């Protein structure tokens, strides 16, 4: 039946595969929480030189993304950094 397919739960086999793909991305990146924090604070420091950042809205994580050259999924650093105010360049 068509409806069966609609309402069928995702099989546990494909759940396992999806979960594994995700966990292996962070395993392979070998990125500990401490390292992540360090990277985050460095990024904040650099960007703060030019613009005012909303630190509470900041979100930086390692995830996976489709590569442009057809290599399938590759790990990527995704950063969402809200700017609260453009700094006036005082030279």
């Amino acid at each position, binding site marked *: 039946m068509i409806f069966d397919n609609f309402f069928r739960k995702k099989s546990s086999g494909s759940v*396992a595969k999806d979960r*594994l793909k995700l966990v292996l991305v962070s395993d392979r990146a070998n990125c500990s929480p401490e390292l992540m924090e360090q990277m985050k604070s460095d990024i904040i420091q650099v960007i703060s030189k030019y613009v005012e950042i909303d630190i509470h809205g900041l979100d930086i994580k390692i995830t996976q993304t489709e590569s442009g050259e057809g290599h399938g999924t590759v790990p990527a650093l995704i950063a969402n950094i809200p700017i609260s105010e453009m700094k006036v360049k005082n030279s």
Partner: protein
Amino acid sequence: MGEVIVITSGKGGVGKTTTTANLGTGLAQMGKSVVLIDTDIGLRNLDVVMGLENRIVYNLVDVIEGTCRINQALIKDKRNPSLYLLPSAQTKDKSAVSPEQMRKLAEELKEKFDYILMDCPAGIEQGFQNAIAGATRALVVTTPEVSAIRDADRIIGLLDAAEMDRTDLIVNRLRADMVKKEEMMSSNDVVEVLGINLIGVVPDDENIVISTNKGEPLVGSDTLAGKAYMNICRRILGEEVPMLDLYRKDGFMSKLVSKFKKKELK
């Protein structure tokens, strides 16, 4: 010059020792001279799976420490004259041996044997480093479960870092009935996740338990697992062998025949 192959997995209990015993026996049946080394110091196992536990006099640590010569420690297999086992020590711990010493031992054995198979302990510590030290080729064993696959991925990373010439994957204990229902990852799924070459798939076969009980590897026998192991041996030798069809639907007659066969086995 022989080839040194390490059989490893990361996670324990996925079938490294059974795989080592069967591949070694299979290669010997094909006329190769083979030595199996149990590198799991403190937790000796390969000897009982091979059915050779009563013949041990010297062990790996004795050889390394120079208490005996290699020839004195090698145990000849019961059925295959070109197959030998170097058992592990039961009373020592992993620090009794260093990777450098293992490399030297492997070099020496390469002169006399076609294949040296290292049965690696679980984990990624010293025992793992010892087992891979002399090897130029690795077989990673995993089952189609998340924990085993995750550990296998870690191991593959470490083997890459150790610059292994070649690393292949064995998917063990696959249950075709569950894969059909999509309640288990298929071997293709596992290959897709891990991204290395598949050299064989071994089905979950109760004959493995029976053969381990007896201490007689079942490679080459008329069982699914026995055929699967033999195919892996042939692929190790470089033959192109198609993958076993584990998903074949059994008709009424073939079910009947296999029932009779099982009775004969007992």
